[in-house]
């Protein structure tokens, strides 16, 4: 067993805490020290919650000493994407417009983790309001990829993925509207799960696109993902879109053998994938086959329309969801203006970044009278077709596999000038959000020295099969054990 506490999995941390081999305080301190050392070079967090985390660690240690039972995530440090509310703590969504806003309630997802003994050590950087694929669209600063500081960590949950990859924490919470957990997980070489729509409560998750958003975990092993998912999932009476379904013990699924697993691959849509990335994907399929799974070809004929569909549905909902940031009640308000319309305009102009403005304008347009049918309604119809594509595919397989992204992490600044190029990053990830199905991204090796991901998509509410498949993959490969170079070797970045 590695002597370095920050290399431990969540499962091992919990074991040590439960057996009193290590105290929560000791574990939290180790991660806070690690964070202090590597964070300046990466910039994964918007805020470190040192005092709060240590207070909670000590409180948990006292409770354990007094005989309390250790929760399923006892003592596990966790980083939370900064669009999940925590009572009294600034929640910025990576935006200037939420300047000074402190929510009076905690997101259900965070509350469930904390109730299970997890300790939040920081809030992670992100593209503003989760709109972006590189974390360069944060209203505060970009986050760097721990594998190469000149490259992006992906986005929008780039801070969460980078923090896990750099061992600041063994797990993190992100949100995924079109790939925002899976794509940064792939770019940073960690595991990311987007649960089925309705699996995890959205209460307290600041909305980007309500019909697509899901909260999900990032970690370094599938086993840890399974443990945290068991805690995270389940119906919440405060979210009317959360599903009234029982949550299986995902950790049990992880232990099963792969017999009979059928993996479907939509070869026809993988044309544009970069050569090395495609090679890692083929090798990953080979590993699964070697472990006993079978690989079949499936068709997803409407997949080429997914990105366009996504950018209509998501921006339409976003234009409405972001209307509340108007300077009237909280957050930024442009000062010294008497006229109401002008106050709205100036506040939003000053508070929102260019990508958010672009999407709000696009969304407003697709919903406007005379265009609604041609865009929004049509997009909803295509969405139904994409859902049906998957239903048909799952008649002949248990999980659909694709590379998570067409390439490994791109360079900072490489795609910021060309939003369309940036949007195409999402080609393999957005279909899962449109169809409401679960998606898991697993590290499957390096392409050009950078991690790339294997994505597995499952039937609605069948996270179990994905975790089972992912665990099998991690039993037969060692990609998840690869770690990025220490930041000191690449030098501290400005």
């Amino acid at each position, binding site marked *: 067993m590695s002597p370095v506490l920050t290399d431990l999995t969540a499962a091992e941390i919990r074991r040590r805490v439960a057996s009193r081999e290590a105290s929560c305080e000791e574990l939290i301190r180790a991660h806070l020290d690690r964070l202090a050392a590597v964070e300046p070079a990466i910039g994964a967090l918007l805020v470190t919650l040192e005092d709060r985390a240590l207070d909670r660690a000590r409180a948990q240690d006292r409770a354990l000493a007094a005989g309390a039972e250790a929760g399923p995530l006892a003592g596990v440090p966790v980083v939370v994407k900064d*669009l*999940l*509310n925590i009572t009294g703590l600034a*929640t910025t*969504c990576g935006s200037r417009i*939420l300047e000074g*806003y402190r*929510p*009076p*309630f905690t*997101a259900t997802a965070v509350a469930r983790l904390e109730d299970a003994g997890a300790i939040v050590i920081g809030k992670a950087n992100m593209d503003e309001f989760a709109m972006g694929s590189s974390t360069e669209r944060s209203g505060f600063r970009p986050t760097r990829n721990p594998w190469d500081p000149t490259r992006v960590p992906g986005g929008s949950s780039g801070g969460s993925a980078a923090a896990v990859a750099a061992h600041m924490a063994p797990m993190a919470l992100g949100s995924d509207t079109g790939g925002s957990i899976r794509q940064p997980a792939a770019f940073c070489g960690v595991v990311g799960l987007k649960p089925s729509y309705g699996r995890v409560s*959205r*209460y*307290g*998750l*600041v*909305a980007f*696109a*309500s*019909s697509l958003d899901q909260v999900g975990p990032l970690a370094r092993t599938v086993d840890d993902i399974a443990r945290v998912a068991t805690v995270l999932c389940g119906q919440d*009476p*405060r*979210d*009317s*879109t959360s599903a009234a379904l029982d949550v299986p013990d995902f950790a049990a699924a992880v232990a099963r053998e792969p017999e009979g697993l059928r993996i479907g691959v939509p070869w026809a849509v993988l044309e544009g994938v970069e050569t090395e990335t495609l090679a890692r994907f083929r090798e990953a399929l080979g590993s699964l086959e070697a472990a006993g799974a079978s690989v079949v070809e499936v068709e997803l004929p409407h997949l080429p329309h997914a990105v366009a569909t996504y950018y209509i549905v998501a921006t*339409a*909902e976003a*234009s*409405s969801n*972001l*209307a*509340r940031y*108007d300077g*009237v*009640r*909280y957050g930024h308000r442009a000062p010294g203006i008497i006229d*109401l319309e002008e106050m*709205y305009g100036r506040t939003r102009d000053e508070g929102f970044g260019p990508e958010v403005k672009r999407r709000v304008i696009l969304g*407003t347009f697709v*919903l*406007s*009278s005379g265009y*609604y049918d041609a865009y*929004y309604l049509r997009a909803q119809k295509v969405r139904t077709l994409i859902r049906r594509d998957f239903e048909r595919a799952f008649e002949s397989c248990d999980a659909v596999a694709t590379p998570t992204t067409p390439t490994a992490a791109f360079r900072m600044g490489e795609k910021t000038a060309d939003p369309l190029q940036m949007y195409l990053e999402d080609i393999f990830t957005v279909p899962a959000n449109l169809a409401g199905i679960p998606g898991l991204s697993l590290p499957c090796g390096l392409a050009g020295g950078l991690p790339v991901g294997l994505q597995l998509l499952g039937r609605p509410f069948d996270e179990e099969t994905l975790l089972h498949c992912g665990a099998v993959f991690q039993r037969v490969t060692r990609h998840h054990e690869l770690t990025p170079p220490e930041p000191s070797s690449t030098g501290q970045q400005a």
Partner: protein
Amino acid sequence: MTVAEQSFSGLLAEYEPVIGLEVHAQLLTRTKLFCSCPNRFGDPPNTNVCPVCLGLPGALPVLSREAVSLAMRAALATHCTVQEESIWARKNYFYPDLPKGYQISQYEKPLALEGWVEIPGEGGGTRRVRLQRIHMEEDAGKLLHEGFPWSAEKSGVDFNRGGVPLIEMVTHPDLRGPEDAFEYLSALKAILLYIEASDCNMEEGSLRCDANVSVRRRGAEAYGTRTEIKNLNSFRHVARALEHEIARQVAVIESGGEVVQETRLWNADRGETASMRSKEEAHDYRYFPEPDLPPLRVTAEWTEEVQHSLPELPPERRRRFTEEHGLPDYDAGVLTQSRAVADYFESVARETGDAKAASNWVMNDVLRKLKEDDADIAECRVTPESLGRLVKLIEGGTISGKIAKDVFEKMWTSGEGPQAIVEREGLVQLSDEDALQATVAEVLEASPDQVAAYRGGKKAAIGWFVGQVMKKTGGKANPRVVNTLLKKALDS
């Protein structure tokens, strides 16, 4: 008839108004539509608020079944068909009283479709005003422009009303004048009160009305261009505003102009409507299905359950009052305006067995006193049982009708039963002939001139004698007995 009224009826001879009304009614729920904050009027600003009704980032709506049930009551009571599936939609616009920047409403698939409300028709009959739809939505907050130390510089917003459940009831263009509109609103209000769906308090804004108005030449088939009139916050204003708007539109047409499709605001102080925004300036609300709420599904069982829980409604009750109790239609109409009044009347009628007497007492005395006191029948201290006993005391000859009015006044203030008052104050009517004989003799003896006049043929003087006897007995003498005794004495 005033000059204005004359000219209005004059223009109605040539032009026919076509009116449709949109009525918003706040539902009498315990909580708001999408959160558990109390739905209560009059509390200090921003005390009944939470993350959900303040639209804080990350908060989500959870539908109140209670509100849906009340809306279904309103739908079924107006003969609408409750839809198995209705869809929540976002209506997007910016305003400081709208915390999310959108209102959760229903648009393409509302809760209920196609019903009607009965209003009085020509020749004592009834007529149906058809309803197009009823949909549910949340109310907005309220801007506070005055009454605060800082009101000179800025306005505040009170979100207590934000998220309160509303139903919007939209008629077809079936109304043909201000009179119709008044009748429709009265009938609708009576129904909503009966089923306890809304308190319909226009002053507190729990009932609000917008009107779509156009005019056309009598005999024409096509509708004229319509305007929408907003801010009609009392029944009287609705009638006045419609009258004004109809006259305005006719004047525009008569002078060779064209009515412009627009939204106009009623200004009650100036007694006129003024243009608020044109068709071109109309908001594009960018409605789309609310992704935070699944479609509302109403099972047949739920509809049936609500249907069975409905009380007898005003039109049926009115008919029954005329048929079963033999009341004049006018009485039946007045008594069935409110369910509590109708219940009260029926209790009194049951107690006395004399529906007409009960109706007279309730209409002339109880309702008059309530109006004087500006009180509700629920606060009335005279129970229907004791009013019934009072009526029986008259009918049994124990007290006179005149004394009964005094007793009623005392009952009204003290809440005592009639028996106790009559006994304590010695108000029992004197019907005993022997006891009254002496007083009659006294009166005749003291008034020889009047006796002579009567006997000389001035028979009408009998009333004066009765009055004298009543005066001497403090009003307690039974006038019928006195009359008989006097006649016997004078005519002998």
